[in-house]
């Protein structure tokens, strides 16, 4: 007795397999961008502010499938990674159009341009932002993969 096997939907499976890589690339890319935007927002919120130059300099740069957070401020590195505690002359420029004396005066510390102050504290802003958001990355990637599968089925 002959056995007849009929397979249906091969065309749809083929079409699904053809669309899936493109959709995955697109959806994972979208989630990656969203993740980096969240980090940028979080870093801006955490960045110490006085003139606002540091927060303003936290930018998201994108090339094809690659996103970079760039901190384009001369003191960004030192706020993030720290520095050796030291005395600084009040007349020293802050490289944002002001002098250390202006900053000290705004904090109610010293109003004179003479003398120096001791600086020791730094405030990291990128690493805490990354720490806060990295836990959400697997969920975001999962959501992206699920959406890609849904889109590839259409």
């Amino acid at each position, binding site marked *: 007795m002959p056995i007849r096997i009929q397979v249906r939907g091969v065309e749809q499976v083929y079409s699904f397999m053809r669309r899936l890589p493109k959709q995955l690339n697109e959806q994972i890319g979208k989630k990656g961008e*969203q993740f980096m935007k969240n980090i940028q927002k979080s870093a*801006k919120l955490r960045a110490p502010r006085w003139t*606002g130059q540091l927060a303003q300099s936290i930018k998201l740069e994108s090339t094809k499938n690659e996103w970079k957070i760039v901190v384009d401020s001369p003191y960004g590195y030192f706020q993030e990674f720290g520095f050796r505690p030291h005395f600084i002359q009040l007349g020293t420029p802050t490289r944002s159009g002001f002098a250390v004396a202006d900053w000290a005066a705004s904090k109610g510390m010293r109003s004179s341009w003479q003398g120096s102050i001791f600086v020791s504290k730094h405030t990291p802003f990128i690493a805490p932002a990354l720490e806060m958001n990295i836990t959400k990355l697997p969920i975001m990637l999962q959501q992206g993969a699920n959406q890609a599968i849904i889109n590839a089925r259409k």
Partner: protein
Amino acid sequence: MTALTKATVSQAVFGNIYDRISTNVTSVTLSDSTTSTIQTYTASFPDKEMDTKSNYPICVINTPSLSWENFSLTKKQVVGTFEVDIYTTKAESADLFSDAIINSIETYRFTLGNTDKMVWVNLESTAYDSVMRGKIKVHMKSCTFSFRFKFTKSAGT
């Protein structure tokens, strides 16, 4: 409210959402019966020092991100997202404001689709963050929405 055209997608989306949020989401009542009223509606979080409680809540309506895809032989489709962030000094008010924002956009979907031509408006995700700024703790809740807008391609393209 402004209907979207292919020449004015970004500004029309921003304007429509800004008008909607600033009209409909103004204050919330917390569980201790106090009222929290939004102090500033803006397009980006202020870069200057914001370390006093009276500056908050701040509502940030971000400019939309856009991309194109083919819709048919004669039409293209803009696939975009816009984000609305709320910065408060109480976690409860951040939740209440984000609910109010989501509800405001949801109840407005019909008008957005029919009058403003922004279709398929959906909540994509929400995100939460909190940070100590000076002596206050700032809570941030971010709501990301997606939308689509179809337009006719220019002749010969």
